[in-house]
């Protein structure tokens, strides 16, 4: 079984924002992947963006540049 690590998890207000995030990240070679919002963060069932903690600055800058609004940035075991 894969060992859990502390990761950056970006949550969004809508699933569409999460999909837009994936598209923007792929276009701009920003690392990370879509995952279901971890249960420890929310009882909702939306999507979130998961990346290494060290990529935080690049991700935040890319979101500002692309006009993608996050709900929150979390650090949690994924």
């Amino acid at each position, binding site marked *: 079984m894969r060992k859990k690590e502390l990761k950056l998890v970006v949550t969004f207000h*809508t699933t*569409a*924002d999460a999909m*837009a995030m994936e598209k923007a990240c792929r276009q701009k070679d920003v690392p990370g992947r879509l995952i279901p919002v971890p*249960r420890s963060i929310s*009882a909702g069932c939306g*999507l979130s963006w998961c990346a290494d903690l060290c990529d935080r600055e690049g991700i935040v800058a890319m979101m500002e540049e692309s006009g993608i609004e996050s709900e929150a940035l979390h650090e949690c075991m994924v």
Partner: protein
Amino acid sequence: MNFNLSDSKKKLALAGVVCGLVAAVLAYFGNPANMAICIACFIRDTAGALGLHQAAVVQYARPEIIGIVIGAFAISVATKEYRSTAGSSPMIRFVLGMVIMIGSLVFLGCPLRMVIRMSAGDLNAWVALIGFILGVSTGAIALKNGFSLGRAHETQKESGAVLPVLMAGILVLLLCTSLLKFSESGPGSMHAPIIVSLIGGLVFGAFAQKSRMCFAGSIRDIVLMRNFDLITVIGGLFVVMLIYNIATGNFTPAFDTPGVVAHSEHLWNILGMYAVGFAAVLAGGCPLRQLVLAGQGSSDSAVTVAGMLVAAALCHNFGLASSGTALDAETGELVAGAVTPAGKVACVICIVVCFIIAFTNKRESAK
């Protein structure tokens, strides 16, 4: 108070096993065997009990529905996860709720019942699974193309409690008055004792809230992210019901099994569940998930539930609901279940409506 049911696949499977046990217990104590805890059927029965339709064989205020909503409400309040939200295109969600119910009653069951029927060997349900997967996949394509109903916002905390309170009101009517209708024959007359049904619903709702059990979401997550967490919950439920059906002699791998309340019109089994899967992804969850989300404070999901309730009544008032294969009581001959002409038209309209909703509501216009 907090317990995490979703930090491992084993725990998720355990949540599914618990829900499967609840379904098996309800079937054992008198619910129609392969309905057990079908959300669409039981909302339809509740609509009948309230007098919204006059189909005499499907009228009973199912305590399971009341229990699921109140169970999800109670556990979310107790674990501080209750959030009263609203405002994500409520009337479109009402229409999606209608589509979900119409598709379900063309197939004869919600996704939960589809899985229960699959566990009983009903091959029609396996055929319908194809349609459900295709429907969810179409919804996933819409999500990839920027589909959005807009974000929900925090609202007055009382708003999210309205549906649980209304459900409690129906329970009071059931227990203390003679206002509600009760079927004297047919599926509506078959039920577990009220207290067993209510406790079963409460437990099911609580575990579904904690595990985020969702039939549409589980396939959506596989399609979009190759994530198998939610399908693990469904797997747990399926295995328990499979064992129950084999142990009680209810496992019959066949298409035309009398008494299952199913039909063998393959195209319409596929299209019915296609509509359900498609609409469920657009609405953010299957019928069960809508009840649970409404319980934990989402007024948008409560509106979806209202759409399902109204559509359930319309299905019987307008003759949209299919009939199940059964033995003729007098001749003993097998009478094949069938989809009605009106049901076929409604099903096609529902699919068209899903496409219109899916490809006209975009992220940019939702902001």
